[in-house]
């Protein structure tokens, strides 16, 4: 009972909140919300005038460049900056490059551990600034597309849009959430760490002088950091273990709030899309399709991870022997035996507890795992590496489809691409010119949509293949067999989906620049993941803006009997089918080689 109550409560609360939020969002983005005079001064200061789509995209890229340089400078100068109580050094250059790219694109895939490698100065001026700004950039991309669809005279002004999103929306909500996190136990201090002598003397070991070691606990401005991490679907952890860490997520209530916070804007944006286009029913259909997929991923994860025990500790058998072809064995065949395995005497009625925290609730880890990838947040409150093998398919599918609400604006943009493709295919099948929002979809629009859509699988499958076949991947795997392959596939899926969660065992951490023993393949991972992130972030924003601009410039076709209506159940099924079929065709082989193969066994695999 309580297993399903938590996910249902999270989904229901967020849906209810999304309605008023979407109204407020469309007021702000249409400029109908009048801010206090003082704040409007800033708007005027930033306004560079009306922009067409090329100017809007140009400003966006330019601002990203500025953000990149700023982030790089903050991290590179870490040893000389204040608020660095534990005297942390400089990260390896490749890791700085990867981290800056990752944070400025809202991905927040981390090849470092915040608690070990970043000072409070870096956490605030690198992490927090990117949390606010990167989330707003994707958001503005979606708003630009909507205005283009509406055939507005211009697309508004990028800088003013950014200001409105950051200051009128993110800041107030983030502050309120921050107070809640404080009350629940998140620290809010500029100290770096607290030293405590443990209750039982000497349990942390002894120093060279023979004194009892103290437990050193890293603290910091968590209450400011975490709310925006979630609201902006950023997901970059203050600590290495992200929202599993007790300071980053102290209670079941903050876990609930974290889930609601990361889903709030993705939900609201879909409705805002309908409001701004005055086609609310159309966005209800999209919302329902996304919700259907989300519910499916949650049920899958909870069913296979919370309601099933960890298969590594259960009985398997009886023993089976197979004959398999082998190039090296004499006669070309070799016998392989799956041994019988006895159960460990462990009570697993709470499900798979490896890598889970207790305080969030029984199904909280699995629920969070599904939600965090659906909305491309990437924060984790459990170790995804240790999820039951088949349960881990849920977060992976979430990243592969990349349109189950998705991140700030970008998920909705991806869904638009599926809509265009779906309508295009449906139009071809019945032999009618496909139309969307009354505009005829031509070859150019379909091509742009396809380019944007195909970037994602290409950026996952190619690097995964290359790394799985070379030392770059093989030496980084920390688990044997199919799971090692899953680790590689997961990392690139996470990079390409702008997600940021990971199978943490993968050896990708270089650490400080002077680290004598970094992970052997950390540099190729830093560079490859950063490139994937850049391509998979910007192409799927720019191409759709161009597509929307071309589409918006066309004359509206009159509504006729043959028009495919976009606000019906039929359309919902068409969209669902397009998403599922394209996603399944593209990624089924990876799923079979990774989580499905691991699930089928043998478990344990090897010695």
């Amino acid at each position, binding site marked *: 009972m309580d297993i399903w109550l938590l996910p249902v409560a999270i989904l229901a609360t967020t849906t209810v909140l999304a309605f008023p939020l979407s109204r407020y969002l469309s007021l702000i983005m249409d400029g109908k919300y009048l801010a206090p005079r003082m704040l409007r001064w800033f708007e005027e200061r930033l306004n560079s005038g009306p922009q067409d789509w090329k100017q809007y995209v140009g400003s966006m890229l330019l601002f990203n460049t500025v953000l990149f340089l700023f982030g790089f400078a903050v991290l590179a100068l870490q040893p000389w900056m204040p608020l660095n109580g534990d005297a942390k050094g400089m990260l390896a250059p490749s890791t700085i490059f990867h981290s800056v790219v990752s944070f400025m694109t809202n991905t927040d895939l981390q090849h470092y551990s915040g608690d070990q490698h970043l000072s409070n100065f870096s956490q605030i001026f690198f992490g927090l600034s990117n949390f606010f*700004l990167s989330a707003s950039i994707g958001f503005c991309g979606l708003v630009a597309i909507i205005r283009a669809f509406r055939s507005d005279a211009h697309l508004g002004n990028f800088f003013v849009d950014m200001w409105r999103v950051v200051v009128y929306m993110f800041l107030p909500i983030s502050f309120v959430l921050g107070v809640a996190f404080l009350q629940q136990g998140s620290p809010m201090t500029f100290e770096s760490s607290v030293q405590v002598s443990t209750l039982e003397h000497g349990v*942390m070991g002894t120093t060279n002088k023979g004194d009892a070691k103290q437990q050193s606990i890293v603290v910091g401005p968590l209450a400011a950091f975490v709310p925006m991490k979630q609201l902006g679907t950023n997901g970059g952890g203050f600590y290495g273990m992200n929202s599993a860490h007790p300071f980053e997520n102290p209670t079941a209530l903050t876990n609930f709030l974290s889930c609601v916070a990361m889903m709030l804007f993705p939900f609201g944006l879909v409705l805002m899309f309908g409001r701004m286009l005055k086609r609310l029913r159309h966005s209800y259909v999209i919302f329902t399709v996304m919700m259907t997929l989300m519910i499916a991923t949650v049920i899958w994860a909870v069913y296979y991870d919370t309601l099933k025990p960890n298969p590594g500790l259960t009985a398997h058998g009886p023993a089976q022997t197979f004959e398999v072809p082998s190039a090296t064995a004499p006669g070309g065949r070799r016998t392989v035996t799956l041994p019988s395995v006895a159960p460990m*005497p462990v009570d697993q009625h709470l499900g798979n507890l490896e890598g889970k925290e207790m305080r969030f609730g029984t199904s909280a880890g699995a629920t969070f795992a599904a939600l965090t990838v659906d909305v491309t947040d990437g924060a984790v409150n459990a170790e995804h590496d240790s999820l039951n093998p088949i349960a881990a398919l849920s977060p992976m599918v979430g990243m592969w489809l990349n349109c189950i609400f998705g991140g700030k604006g970008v998920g909705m943009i991806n869904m638009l691409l599926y809509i265009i493709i779906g309508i295009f295919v449906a139009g071809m099948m019945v032999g009618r010119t496909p139309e969307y929002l009354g505009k005829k979809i031509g070859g150019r629009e379909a091509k742009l949509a396809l380019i944007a859509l195909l970037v994602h699988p290409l950026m996952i499958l190619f690097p995964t293949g290359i790394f799985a076949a070379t030392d770059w991947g093989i030496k980084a795997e920390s688990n044997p067999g199919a799971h090692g392959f899953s680790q590689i596939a997961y990392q690139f899926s996470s990079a390409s989906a702008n997600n940021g969660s990971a199978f943490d065992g993968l050896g990708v951490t270089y650490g400080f620049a002077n680290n004598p023993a970094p992970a052997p393949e950390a540099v190729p991972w830093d560079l490859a993941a950063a490139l994937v992130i850049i391509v998979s972030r910007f192409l799927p924003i720019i191409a759709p803006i161009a597509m929307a601009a071309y589409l918006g410039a066309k004359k509206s076709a009159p509504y006729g009997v043959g028009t495919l209506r976009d606000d019906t159940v039929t359309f919902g099924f068409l969209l669902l089918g397009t998403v599922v079929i394209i996603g399944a065709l593209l990624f089924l082989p990876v799923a079979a080689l990774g989580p499905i193969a691991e699930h089928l066994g043998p478990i344990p695999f090897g010695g």
Partner: protein
Amino acid sequence: MLKSISKSLWLLLFAVVICCIVYPLALWVVGQTVFPFQANGSIVKGPDGTPAGSLLIAQPFTKDEYFQPRPSAASYNGSASSSSALAASNYALRNRVATTLGPIVRYGSGPKDGQLVAPDIESWFQQDRFQDNPSILLQWADAHNSLAQAWVAADTMHAQYVTTWASTHGPVVEQFIKANPAIPQPQPSDLAVVFFETFSKEHPGRFPSLATHTDSAGKATASIEPAGTGTDIQSTFFDMWRLDHANVNLQNVPGDMVTTSGSGLDPHITLQNAMYQLDRVAAKWAVDTKRETGSVRIEIEALLREKAFAPLNGLAGEKLVNVLEVNLVLRNRYGVPS
């Protein structure tokens, strides 16, 4: 272009001032004035008045008088949170759980209901037969090369022992080098598997274990010696014993007791886990305070039930206990554990 650059810089400046200075400072003021305890890390003081720990961060306990937290993949290091990242299919996970279980598991039915399994693991090990084949140690080292190597690497005394062994077993080492031309100068951990193979022939039913001897002058010396009993055998070979006794009914151990948490710093255990530890804790405090076990047990059980809470008031999960909070009460109530 120039205009856009200047606007970009203005936007960055405004955003940094508001989001990275004004906003955190405002929350900092709220935190330090309204919620100073939480804002500084929920630090609690020990009996001597110094900070003893954070209520939100697990710390290790080894004495039997205290409740023990969940095992930690981060070694309870408060500045390097970490999970095990072990996949379910990784034998290392099963092995880690089996190693923890061996010394504490009890029979769940039959003539030995409630008794420890550990003595039977030892006698089974001494008989030295696994699945109808002789030599348990040999089969263990063959099946789990990495565990054999990990044993050698775990302790300098282990490596020393293997080095000494290698110096007296020239032909075996030469044969190893011939079979592994890639390793012309094998280190102790390279030799782990052949070492155990020879050891099992020379000392059937024995495992190289740490032994402490006190000489006539009262000086203690530690050395590695072949032994037929001990925690090493109970923990290392529990998994194999279990394979030989797959149908024996054993008492289940609470899941959170043998699994590591996501952060490695999970401050809670389930009430079920605490109840499982209650007998041990109560018995030990009873000895320390020279009181009757029954009454101490009742007191501590009442304490556990008083401190237990469930996530979201029971809507989301089962009852939990904060380990440090409870242990702090025990320490203040019953004094220093002996």
